[in-house]
């Protein structure tokens, strides 16, 4: 027997986004005649190819020109996309997606074969995708073997049962599997187009997508334009006609251009949120954003002796005054952090962490005691080096932390600033003592964070290895509600302190008052241009 998961989301989608038929009034507001949404990109888009793209801004564009099996609504909930729904087998290892009747922008039908082709393409060694690991993370059968070249891509656990039925076989049950299909690397591409044009297939004019928009103009370093795709299945409910992304590297320049009315959405430069929220209370927005900022302690082989002592690590973490970091240094509504997973992650109950409940005075006292116990003091001060990559914000936080550690614990901290590539290379080689890091969730579920600290994770650079922790995370994969395990895992992290959590992110953005539908409550800041609209001033 198969459990039918009829998504109430179809109804949910209607609630979130009222259907309308060529009306000019939505929720009592007059639509603007000119439905063009313009926003700022920090950097040029590196690729429009769903299987090649690796960055967040690229994903934003790709979500407009392609559509995956499932989408997110404005709160981050799962709603149908190219699939109208899916069923799961009883052992939770087989997912069957029913595709809706939809067309590519060239008029070809979107079929299950397109998905099968694209998923195989992601892991095919010939594609050499940097995101091939994502399919391994999804647990699709044989994904790792294909990446390693041990079996051919055809052995991947995906199958087009017929034109409208796409079946995925997993190696292990992953409760949040369906929500992972929201990620761009799983989006379909049209085989005939890719093969006809080679790497040029993503050029405007060549590119064919199944999303609400088509890429109509791309001028590298300047702008990316996409325009309404009349072939899109939900075209009649799409309001924005054209989305323009302007590449503006400098955030202050972007703000000036926002204030001049040239763009509808931009990021608030660091430190300016307090001023802007006073001057433009309706436009300056601070919302949770799924990233967590930490300082790794190197407790591995290459790390210093001192950091192998849990008392030292705890003392260092306790002595960081997070309130000063969030309220005085960052000033953008960021969350003080005593755990790893972002506290606003869907379905995640922030566990009680012992030292989160203490006052800073208590934390400092405890830190002093622990460090003394470990044998460090005025006559034998702890000496450490903190690595961070070039950025004003990282620098300010590093200076703050060096002050806390110096004043409370007498730590002699050397600050080492490196450009990004050098910083990362050193970190991944374990060539550091204390090192700045931030992890951003790949999907809206706590395991995207907590899996990182398992001993078998490739991203765990601290050298932390705890069999109990690993067991908790393995077990969580098959639990109906893994929260209990997540709480225990977070408690272990607080007890072992392989890193000092510092703060959890907020997105600080400016939105023009005429723009509606921005997913303010979506932790991943996943937006689709087709959900937006612009009203008359």
């Amino acid at each position, binding site marked *: 027997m198969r459990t039918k998961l009829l998504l109430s989301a179809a109804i949910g989608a209607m609630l979130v986004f009222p259907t309308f038929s060529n009306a000019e009034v939505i929720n009592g507001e007059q639509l603007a005649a000119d439905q063009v949404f313009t926003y700022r990109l920090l950097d*040029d888009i*590196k*690729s*429009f*190819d769903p299987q*090649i793209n*690796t960055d967040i801004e690229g994903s934003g564009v790709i979500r407009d020109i392609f559509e995956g099996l499932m989408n997110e609504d404005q709160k981050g909930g799962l709603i149908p996309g190219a699939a109208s729904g899916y069923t799961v087998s009883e052992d939770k290892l087989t997912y069957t997606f029913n595709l809706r009747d939809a067309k590519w922008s060239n008029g070809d039908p979107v079929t299950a074969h397109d998905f099968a082709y694209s998923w195989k393409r992601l892991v095919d*060694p*010939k594609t*050499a*995708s*940097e995101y*091939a*690991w994502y399919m391994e993370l999804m647990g699709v059968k044989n994904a*790792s073997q294909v*990446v*390693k*070249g041990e079996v051919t891509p055809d052995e991947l656990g995906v199958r087009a049962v017929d034109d409208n039925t796409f079946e995925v076989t997993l190696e292990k049950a992953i409760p949040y599997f369906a929500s992972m299909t929201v990620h761009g690397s799983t989006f379909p591409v049209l085989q005939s187009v890719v093969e006809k044009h080679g*790497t*040029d297939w*993503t*050029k405007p004019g060549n590119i064919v997508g199944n999303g609400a928009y088509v890429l109509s103009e791309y*001028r*590298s*370093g*300047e*702008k990316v334009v996409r325009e309404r795709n009349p072939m899109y299945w939900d075209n009649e409910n799409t309001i924005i006609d054209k989305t323009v992304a*302007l*590449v*503006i*590297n*400098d955030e*202050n*320049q972007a703000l*000036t*251009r926002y*204030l*001049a009315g*040239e763009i509808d959405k931009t990021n608030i430069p660091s430190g300016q949120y307090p001023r802007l929220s006073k001057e433009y209370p309706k436009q300056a927005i601070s919302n949770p954003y799924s990233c967590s900022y930490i300082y790794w302690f190197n407790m591995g082989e290459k790390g210093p002796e001192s950091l192998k002592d849990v008392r030292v690590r705890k003392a260092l973490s306790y002595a960081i005054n997070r309130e000063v970091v969030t309220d005085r240094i960052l000033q953008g509504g960021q969350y003080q952090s005593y755990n790893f997973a972002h506290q606003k992650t869907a379905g995640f109950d922030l566990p009680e962490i012992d030292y989160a409940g203490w006052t800073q005075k208590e934390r400092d006292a405890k830190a002093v005691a622990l460090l003394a116990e470990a044998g460090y003091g005025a006559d034998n001060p702890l000496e450490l080096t903190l690595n961070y990559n070039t950025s004003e914000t990282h620098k300010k936080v590093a200076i703050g932390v060096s002050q806390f550690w110096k004043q409370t614990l007498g730590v002699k901290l050397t600050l080492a600033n490196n*450009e*990004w*590539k*050098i910083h*990362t*290379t*050193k970190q*991944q080689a374990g060539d550091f003592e204390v090192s700045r*890091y*931030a*992890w951003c969730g790949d999907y809206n579920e706590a395991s995207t964070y907590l899996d990182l600290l398992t001993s078998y994770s*490739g*991203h765990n*650079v601290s050298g932390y290895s705890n069999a109990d922790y690993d067991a908790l995370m393995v077990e969580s994969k098959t639990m109906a509600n893994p929260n209990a395990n997540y709480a225990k895992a977070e408690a272990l992290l607080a007890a072992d302190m392989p890193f000092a959590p510092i703060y959890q992110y907020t997105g600080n953005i400016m939105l023009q008052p005429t723009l509606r539908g921005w997913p303010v409550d979506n932790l991943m800041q996943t937006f689709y241009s087709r959900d937006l609209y612009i009203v008359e001033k």
Partner: protein
Amino acid sequence: MLNLILKRLAMAVPTILVLIVFSFLLMHSAPGGPFTAERALSPEILANLEAKYGLDQPLYKQILIYINNVVFHFDFGPSFIYKDRSVNEIIAQGFPITLTYGSIAFVLAVITGVSLGVMAAIYHNSWLDYLAVGISIGAQVLPNFVMAPILVLVFTLMLGWLPGGGWEYGDPKYIIMPVLALSTSFMASIARITRSSMLEVMNANHIRTARSKGLPVRHIILRHALKPAMLPVISYLGPTFVTMVTGSVVVDLFFSTGGMGLFFVNAALNRDYSVMMGITILVGVLTIFFNLVVDILYAWIDPKIRL
């Protein structure tokens, strides 16, 4: 003269080769690579990528393959970061943009700079001199990364006259601010060099002779003073022209022109080896070429110089 040009061009070939090999080695010795990211890639994925981009070959082989592709096929390879595009495409798109605003800024800087300098020298120690010196010092202390945001603040936000950035295929509205931001500090340098060189020439014997003959001042300046006074200016202009037309990071960054300057810097930061190499070679070739042009101009202006 022809002999010299041929000799110089023959010399250029080994120079460029040395440049290629040296930049190649230097770049590969920098820590990290194009695929270093916050998520360390698994060895298998990294191996697939390196195989695709030929990074799995020994370094000497990579250099040979690269030189072969560049010299015989004029193919600078695919970008390692902008994976949908080749280096040829990136340069073909970015270079015309920087060439446009760079050349206009150059012409503007030369005309205003030389005029200011000459004026200051002729009316030495008068209010005109002070004004010209004042303007050029003002322009010098306002570097382009300060100029650019100020321009946008004034012309886009306050006055609303000009768009704050973009290129739009070279629409004049979009060119004005990049040109102003880029030209001012060069204009100031040119003015200072012209002024001091002109002052020196005005005190030279042949000018005194010309004056004592009673020639009109205009005639003295245009026929006898300006030409020799231009020599130091011209030697400054050669490399300056290359710098200006190969793009300014600041201009590209602040005005989102899509020009080549920002690509150059980003390529270095991203370890985008092929883009980095492509632009380095282009800048190298242009530098060699314009140095030759400067030398020829020298000989033409000053008959004392025998090439």
